[in-house]
């Protein structure tokens, strides 16, 4: 290693200096500082000249208010408890005649006390709906420490400085691609936690879904295009109740919609077919997304819905699939491989490695990507083999999954499941207290 060699030579130099005479090290040190006296300094006189910060500098946290579902995850995870959230519940009229009225949370206050915030970014990481972003803004100091508690208006203003997400690398999973969600769902499910099977599906899904509306709002235009879509509709998109989508969606959605009927069948061939169908549906949507990205046109909305909705059948579809079957897919939903046993059987890791490598090569992925995927497949296969001894926990959730998934949005992420103060425990009271104090 180059680093080690340099360290070694440094140590050698040091010992040489020790040998060569007393006080030479001191002189050497003084020579070093003297050298710096004559170097041109690199100081930037900040208020006068500004540094060219990297585009994704993590300066301050911005809020995209429409995406916030008041799930309180950020406030709960915040190590400093510097996020204050207030909300109330609203009842919406039923969508259909004869339906039941819906309830949703409306955000009243979202404030971050930047005198407490330590910029750990946990809130940004934890936000399941992509409502919080890092902004490169950093000049927001105040003369009074109390004014450092910035309210949602200010936080929303900073959204204009948030860059759109970077381009995906070549051959990466496209957002909204169903197999990715399916794969992640199954990977989670191998942890043999039946309840988590649904939750991971739910968690995985909003990411896919939320990427779609995000595209529109990343433009720096003052009128944020996402607002053309009412917030509740966005939320509805992401909520698990929409596993059976409402009528009135466009034809593409319907095309995807036709498939979930098959999902209830625990037949691997069919579900994989469904996954592929979903993928084929999403492809045009993705291209549309890219188009909307480039033109920053708000009209990109309708097709953008597609991937999110389409992702759901895939998720539900994926669950009954034997884990061995999907695990090896590398998240790509390739040609269906006949799997005779429902669960617990894995192929030889080396074979999986070679197979995925070939697949990737035939799909034209770059060699690095292909190799990486192949390695992932191998590792997954190895783990699958290790687990074949205990097939029971893997099969059990497979049976129950289809029923559980759409109706029980268990742990988090589903707005309807949570009240305005979702956890009556720590978060809401502190927010109130801080309000009264402030």
């Amino acid at each position, binding site marked *: 290693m180059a680093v080690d060699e340099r360290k070694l030579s440094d140590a050698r130099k040091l010992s040489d200096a020790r040998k060569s005479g007393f006080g030479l090290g001191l002189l050497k*040190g*003084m020579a070093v500082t003297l050298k*710096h006296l004559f170097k041109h300094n*690199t100081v930037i006189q900040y208020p006068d000249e500004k540094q060219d910060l990297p585009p994704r500098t993590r300066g301050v946290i911005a809020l995209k208010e429409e995406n916030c579902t008041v799930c309180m995850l950020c406030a709960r995870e915040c190590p400093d408890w510097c996020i204050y959230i207030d909300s109330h519940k609203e009842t919406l009229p039923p969508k259909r005649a004869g339906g039941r009225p819906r309830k949703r949370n409306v955000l009243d206050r979202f404030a971050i006390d930047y005198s407490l915030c330590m910029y750990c970014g946990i809130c940004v990481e934890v936000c399941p709906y992509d409502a919080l972003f890092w902004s490169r803004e950093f000049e927001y100091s105040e003369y009074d420490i109390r004014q450092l508690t910035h309210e949602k208006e200010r936080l929303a203003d900073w959204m204009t400085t948030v860059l759109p997400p970077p381009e995906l690398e070549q051959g990466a999973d496209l957002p909204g691609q169903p197999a990715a969600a399916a794969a992640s769902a199954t990977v989670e499910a191998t942890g043999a936690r039946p309840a988590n099977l649904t939750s991971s599906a739910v968690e995985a899904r909003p990411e896919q879904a939320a990427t779609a509306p995000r595209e529109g709002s990343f433009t720096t235009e003052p009128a944020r295009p996402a607002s053309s879509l009412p917030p509740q509709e966005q939320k509805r998109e992401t909520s698990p109740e929409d596993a059976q989508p409402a009528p009135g969606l466009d034809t593409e959605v319907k095309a995807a919609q036709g498939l979930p009927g098959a999902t209830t069948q625990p037949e691997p061939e069919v579900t994989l077919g469904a996954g592929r169908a979903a993928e084929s549906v999403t492809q045009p949507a993705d291209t549309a997304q890219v188009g909307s990205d480039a033109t920053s046109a708000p009209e990109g909305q309708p097709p953008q819905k597609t991937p999110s909705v389409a992702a759901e059948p895939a998720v539900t579809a994926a669950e009954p699939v034997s884990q061995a079957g999907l695990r090896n897919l590398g998240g790509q939903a390739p040609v269906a491989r006949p799997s005779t046993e429902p669960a617990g059987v894995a192929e030889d890791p080396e074979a999986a490695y070679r197979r995925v490598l070939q697949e990737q090569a035939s799909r034209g992925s770059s060699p690095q990507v292909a190799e990486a995927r192949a390695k992932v497949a191998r590792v997954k296969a190895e783990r699958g083999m290790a687990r074949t001894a205990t097939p029971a926990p893997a099969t059990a959730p497979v049976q129950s999954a289809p029923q559980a998934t759409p109706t029980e949005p268990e742990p988090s992420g589903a707005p309807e499941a949570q009240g305005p103060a979702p956890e009556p425990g720590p978060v809401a009271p502190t927010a109130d207290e801080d309000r009264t104090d402030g």
Partner: protein
Amino acid sequence: MPEIALTAWQILLVKVLVILTIVPVGALAGGYAEHKVMAHLQHRLGPMYPGGFHGWATTLADGLKFLYKEDIVPDAADRKVFSLAPAAIFVPVLMIYLVIPIDRNLIVEDLDVGIFYLLAVGSISTIGVLMAGWSSANKYALIGALRSAAQLIAYELPIVLSAAVVAMYAGSLSVIDIVEKQNFPFAIWPPGIGLIAFLVFTTGAVAEMTRVPFDMPVAESEIITGPFTEYTGMRYIFSHMFAEMGHMVAFAGIGVTLFLGGYKPIIPWSPLEVVPGVIWFGLKFALMIFLFLWIRPTFPRVREDQLQKFAWKFLIPVSLVLVLAMGAWVLYV
């Protein structure tokens, strides 16, 4: 030009007034120089705004700020001693300036025992530091004061001995005599002895000023500001800032006088004799100050035990050997 007749008293008064103005101004200038030199040694710019041009008024603004700060005496402190300590620290520094010859005739008082006076007066500040540390009713202040006193005693000896080496060479304790006796290669002469004595003196001086790398008494990472922890405002300036800067200026002057040939030209070449001694003194003085400022950002702070060990086990033996060597030189060369 009318002849101004001044009595001895008036001359003395003028001289004292000059010193009283020189020291604070020198301390301010020294503070500014320290900011800038240290910054550039560290690849920075240092203060750039106060005063407009390269932040020349930084230390002035600093001083004004300190002037406006509240003068706080801790409740548990010994008020009398606490208030007297800055004076006990600062006045000796002022007194050092009396015998530094800026030019052959530009000296406040050419004492017969000039060097001895310098060393004696310089050692008084130790009491002030102890007073400050003890009276603050603060454990950090007390620890700092004890460290400071131990350090000042330990490094007083190498300084005295290295000065004694020079005095032996010159055969006089008068600073003017010493400067007159020094010839061209100044510090390097007599070979080896002078240079090592100069290095010993510089090391001891840095330690006496309690500057990095010997600033354990005011090590902020351990004991805040040591003896001056509880001081604010002008008291702080006088006990710490001005005292350190004043010490630095004084030691630079002493070093120039004892080792670098004082007001004499750098090379014994007759055209250079035309240049007034003040300028030569100033040049060498600036060099010396730069040396002190240069040391600070270069070396890390040593540990307290290393500090004492270095003084007692290295510097003092070395300077004793120097005294012996110089004795031999004077006798046999």
